[in-house]
């Protein structure tokens, strides 16, 4: 199916309330073209897994609806299931099976014959550099290898929409980067919906990025869109536990947290503050504004707004574009 047939992923006022009245999703509305890689970031418990499970037809929403093109996630689940595949967050390989058996069995569940499934599985494992391990028991593989086996299973299928729920959680940095390389290689062939709480992963992979906090989508766009939502280009971090210094920030924003102070400001002011901090012997880091800074700021603002502390939130908005939710 061509990318255009997948159309748009649309969510309209999607809400999920679990028993005990815990609201995991709170009226999420957005639409995004179902091509490339969409990365959903958010802290633990922000609702990422709930959203991905609803979209992957595993979980019913409490209210609202979602669709891919003309296919409704609830009403056309059978049709949609022909086109989607998921690696759930806590998915593990079955220990008594080998990578070859794991991938080929998954392909058989997708309807392929035994011979075709074995051929595809063999090719997929070879493409991921796992030929050498294909007949070893899964329980003997490293954590990274086991993850790769599951990813190989969904990638070797004909699914056009792939859901990966925190695929690199628990992987070492090398395995994580190998996974990123793999995702970049397959980018463009299908639509990948990926969740993560590693912001550098979202920066590395996401064509478009959504930010989820407490079940609400607080911002969405390309990395450039998100960067543009912050007027200032530099971020300074001053870790807590150092001597008290008085810093005057006239052009930017100063956010205080338990782990220290973060300043978002212009290049000139950043270097001016840097000189003062060096003179006073205070340790700090300075970098161009990253997704981490944007996320930190937006989550802080969201929390303050939810807490009803609007006055302070408005004060802290100085220096930021202050755009609302966008597609």
């Amino acid at each position, binding site marked *: 199916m061509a990318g255009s047939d997948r159309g748009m992923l649309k969510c309209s006022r999607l809400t999920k309330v679990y028993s005990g009245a815990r609201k995991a999703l709170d009226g999420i509305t957005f639409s995004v073209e179902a091509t490339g890689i969409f990365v959903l970031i958010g802290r633990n418990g922000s609702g990422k897994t709930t959203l991905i499970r609803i979209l992957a037809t595993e979980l019913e929403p409490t209210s609202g609806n979602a669709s891919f093109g003309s296919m409704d996630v609830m009403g056309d689940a059978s049709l949609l299931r022909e086109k989607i595949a998921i690696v759930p967050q806590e998915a593990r390989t079955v220990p008594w099976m080998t990578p070859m058996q794991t991938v080929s069995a998954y392909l058989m*569940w*997708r309807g392929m014959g035994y011979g075709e499934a074995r051929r595809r599985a063999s090719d997929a494992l070879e493409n991921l550099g796992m030929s050498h391990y294909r007949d070893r028991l899964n329980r003997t593989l490293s954590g990274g290898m086991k993850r790769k086996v599951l990813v190989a299973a969904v990638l070797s299928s004909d699914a056009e929409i792939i859901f990966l729920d925190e695929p690199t959680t628990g992987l070492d940095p090398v395995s994580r980067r190998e996974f990123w390389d793999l995702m970049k290689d397959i980018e463009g062939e299908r639509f990948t919906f990926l969740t993560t709480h590693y912001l550098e992963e979202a920066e590395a992979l996401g064509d478009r990025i959504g930010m989820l906090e407490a079940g609400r989508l607080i911002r969405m766009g390309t990395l450039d869109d998100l960067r543009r939502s912050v007027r200032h280009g530099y971020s300074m971090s001053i870790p807590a536990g150092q001597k008290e210094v008085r810093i005057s920030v006239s052009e930017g924003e100063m956010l205080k947290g338990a782990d220290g102070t973060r300043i978002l400001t212009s290049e000139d002011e950043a270097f001016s503050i840097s000189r003062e901090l060096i003179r006073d012997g205070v340790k700090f880091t300075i970098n161009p504004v990253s997704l981490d800074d944007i996320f930190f700021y937006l989550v802080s603002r969201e929390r303050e707004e939810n807490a009803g502390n609007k006055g302070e939130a408005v004060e802290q908005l100085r220096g930021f574009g202050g755009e609302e939710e966008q597609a």
Partner: protein
Amino acid sequence: MDSVEKRSRLSQFSASILVNSLYEMKNYPVVLVNTVLSPISFLLLIVFVSHGALIGEAVQGGFIMSMFGAGTSLQADLSHLKNDFKLQDMVVSSPTSWMVYVAGMAASELVYSVPALAVLAILAFYFVHMSPAGTLLFVAVLFLVFASSMAIGYTFATFSTDIVQSFAFSRLISTLFSTIPPVYYPITYIPLPYRYLAYLSPTTYAAQLAQYEGGYVHISPQMFAASWIILILVAAILFALAGSKARWREK
């Protein structure tokens, strides 16, 4: 359904059998011994205690316990694959329907029981004497026992949240329905007041019918008919419950 769709369903059905029995048996051969042990150990116990007098009933009981055990194992296995590996989540988001997945998993439990059934079949050949019609009725009884326990297994599996809870349920159901009731010996061995309790288990009716077909006990035509009706009704009710209560897409 066209031939491509039929082949596709067959592949999906076969995948469950491969994952839940054949690959496990191939890669961990010790499980083959395990499947034989449970029914055979009870059989030996009853034969020794009765000095060989109850060997026919005990072999039939071994069949009934194997078939009931296959259903309760389905519960533990489905729950294990769903909660610990999230494999069921991957299958839900695929073209496989819940019916094909569960049917394949149920078949995998029968495949898993083949070593035990083979040993019991050899023993039955020597020690149980039934007419061809009686053998057919015995197979029908076994099918109903399996169907009932499978329905119980699937329903419980969809509600269980972890493997410890799941295995606890599995053992409880197995003990209540295949160890405590008079499956390996005639119900007349149980003192009368407790006999009524035994009739709360469908496996009691299954054993009674099997023992009647084997010529070990005599039951009235009314009890014969009632036993069949109860077995069929229990299976139908459990299937209806499984269909209405069990969840494929979670709520």
